């Protein structure tokens, strides 16, 4: 009984391993060090966004604005960096993201506006703002972004890309926040039963607002990483990131009803999405069919989850 329960909790990990095993059998290029490194680097930015999305979804909400927020953060970071240095730029980018999250959180938690509508609004609004501040052109200055920053997008530490270190460190830190602090338990309680949490003395509005701040700040981190990788602030960057991130979090077993989900499984969800895309590429599947396959996988995962909870 206990064994079965723990196995059921590892469905995302098992799915990922199965997917890797099948792909490895079909093509020997999959397990090459270069390809595996590629998968990790490709996953890194989305993993950071998905972690922020996990905070929001566990808290019972939803955030469509992360893609636009990442673009904003990348452009703000690039612009500030050209004048004030790498550190100031990176901090400004993350702050810009956190501010978008704060706005989302205040509107959703304190004005009781539906999260879908609110973040749909900020998604469009922030994208517009990015075009306004950049004039629609990539931000890289006349001589390009500082060399140290560009190195962040391609350099390695102990043989592993900086871009991969960032989500790894964040995963450890944020898992601690979500699982080992009173705050984290309040996020789960609020998402699992808002009224019950409220009547237990949890300040649910603040908790909900805070999840959007996490999400915005992490989208900001992702945007800065993206700018480093693209060697410029791209106003069009991050389109459809929100959909991929939500799909990854759901693949990781979180419930859109709130109260369920873990950061590490959301990261697994991101890896599933990236490995699937990678496998279809290696197998030379037509890119139009790839989209069809990814969409089908998302629906299948969500339907499987519903069936499981029906049986309960």
């Amino acid at each position, binding site marked *: 009984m206990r064994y079965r329960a723990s196995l059921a909790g590892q469905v995302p990990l098992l799915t990922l391993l199965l997917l890797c095993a099948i792909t490895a059998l079909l093509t020997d290029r999959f397990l090459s060090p270069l390809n595996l490194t590629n998968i990790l680097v490709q996953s890194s930015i989305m993993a950071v966004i998905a972690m922020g999305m996990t905070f929001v979804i566990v808290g019972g909400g939803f955030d469509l604005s992360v893609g636009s927020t990442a673009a904003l953060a990348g452009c703000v970071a690039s612009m500030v960096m050209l004048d004030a240095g790498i550190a100031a730029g990176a901090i400004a980018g993350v702050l810009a993201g956190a501010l978008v999250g704060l706005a989302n959180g205040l509107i959703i938690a304190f004005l009781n506006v539906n999260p879908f509508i609110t973040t749909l609004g900020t998604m469009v609004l922030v994208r517009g703002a990015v075009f306004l501040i950049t004039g629609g052109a990539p931000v890289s200055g006349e001589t390009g972004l500082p060399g140290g920053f560009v190195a962040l997008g391609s350099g390695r530490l102990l043989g592993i890309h900086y871009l991969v270190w960032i989500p790894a460190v964040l995963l450890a830190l944020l898992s601690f926040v979500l699982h080992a602090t009173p705050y984290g338990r309040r996020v789960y309680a609020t998402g*699992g039963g808002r009224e019950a949490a409220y009547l237990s003395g949890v300040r649910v509005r603040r908790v909900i607002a805070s999840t959007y701040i996490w999400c915005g700040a992490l989208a900001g981190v992702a945007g800065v990483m993206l700018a480093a990788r693209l060697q410029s602030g791209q106003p069009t960057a991050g389109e459809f990131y929100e959909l991929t991130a939500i799909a990854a979090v759901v693949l990781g077993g979180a419930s859109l009803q709130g109260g369920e989900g873990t950061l590490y499984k959301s990261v697994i969800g991101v890896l599933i999405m990236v490995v699937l895309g990678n496998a279809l590429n290696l197998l030379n599947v037509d890119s139009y069919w790839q989209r069809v396959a990814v969409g089908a996988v998302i629906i299948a995962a969500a339907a499987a989850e519903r069936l499981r909870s029906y049986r309960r």
Partner: protein
Amino acid sequence: MNFPALRADGISKRFDATVALDNVDFEVRPGEIHAVVGENGAGKSTLIRILGGAHRPDRGSISVAGTRRHFASPRDAIAAGIVTIPQELRLVPALSVAENMALGDLPVRRMGPFAVIDRRSMREEARSVLALLDFEADPDRRVASLSFAERQLVAIAKGLRRDCRVFILDEPTAALEKREVERLFAVLARMQARATAIVYITHRLDEVVAIADRCTVLRDGRVAAVSTRGAFSVADLIGAMTGGVAEPAPSASAARGEVLLSARPDGATAVALRAGEVVGLAGLLGSGTERMLRRLFGADEPTLVTVGGRGRRLQHPADAVAAGIGMVPGERGLGLVLDQSVRDNILLPNLDVISRFGWLDRSAGDPMVAALMELVDIRPRQPRLKARALSGGNQQKVILAKWLARGIAVLLLDDPTQGIDVAAKAQIHALICDLAARNRAALIKSSDVGELALLCTSVLAVRRDRIIASLDRAHGIDESSLQAAIGG
């Protein structure tokens, strides 16, 4: 041969660990009023949900006018002529009286290729059915603007409109005043004369004696007695409901300590809760007692209270918790995060107590949870079990444990024993009295005035959002005087 209008044979139903009904037989004949009584948790609601098609029985069969039927949904039951008026009325407030009555079966007329609602015939039909009930409401009025009693008449009219063979009413008088109850009885008598079978669930035994032709008493999911008119009295029914073992009266402590909490629950009348006191809030459904409890907990709107001699402004339940006030809400779903473990639920209001420098000290939480599960007797003793998997009584004990863990001074309880079995009910009563004995105070709202008469040192009677009287144990608290005070 004359078949019963509705007959159930050997019905059994379990929910997780709880046996709700165990081999129950029940029948009602055309033109008969058959009352169903029993304590909270005896299985009344489950029985009528099965008869109305909302639940499927695990075992047993249902027949309508002699033909065996399987109800997969309430729709099937309605098609078979079984109409249920639930306690919480299912009306759409934004629609008109006539629209609500016709919903699900709207009259249409052709307009070229389109079918459109025939408003005139809908209105006419509503008017004629409402006239049967002596209820002259404008069919175009929005249901939102009606009083509770008027809405109930609309719900009944909606049932009458259909070809209705069996009419099931679940505690229809819980929110009604005396005059409205009499009107309802007149309506039932008229339906009876038209050979409609009526199943009448109630808490009020004097009503049973007044109108029922037959009465089935449920106890712990089984039929404890069935008797016909003239063969039952209120005393017999109580005996059958409780199985003859009356709960020992908890010893309400006479000594009263210092004032722990003073406030104005209705915004006007000052109320003081003293150490060692259990104070009751009595009122009909919709009289505002629930709102008063929420107000004292700082929920929904800011409130001024005095706790331990200090004035405080409660702007949020968190302020109330910090001031030493706990609350057991009326719906258990509101007191628990159902998909979280018993452990997490107990620790939720106590996270600050067991954390150090911003992180949770799990080694402090586990013994706390274990001790509380032992103290309030939560079964099974599995802290990792999801709260959803527990029986109603055990869920309620988890909610109590949450607050006992904090050592709160004042506990507010909203119908804490509604829908739980007799044994768990006695345990919860004992825990409340124990709390009072340890110089804490409790304010308890209950739909069961008998419970208040049993537990409380004094009872506040509430009518239309105002505390209108206070009854003291020293002057005697009994059910009938309470019932009279709240207008029932």
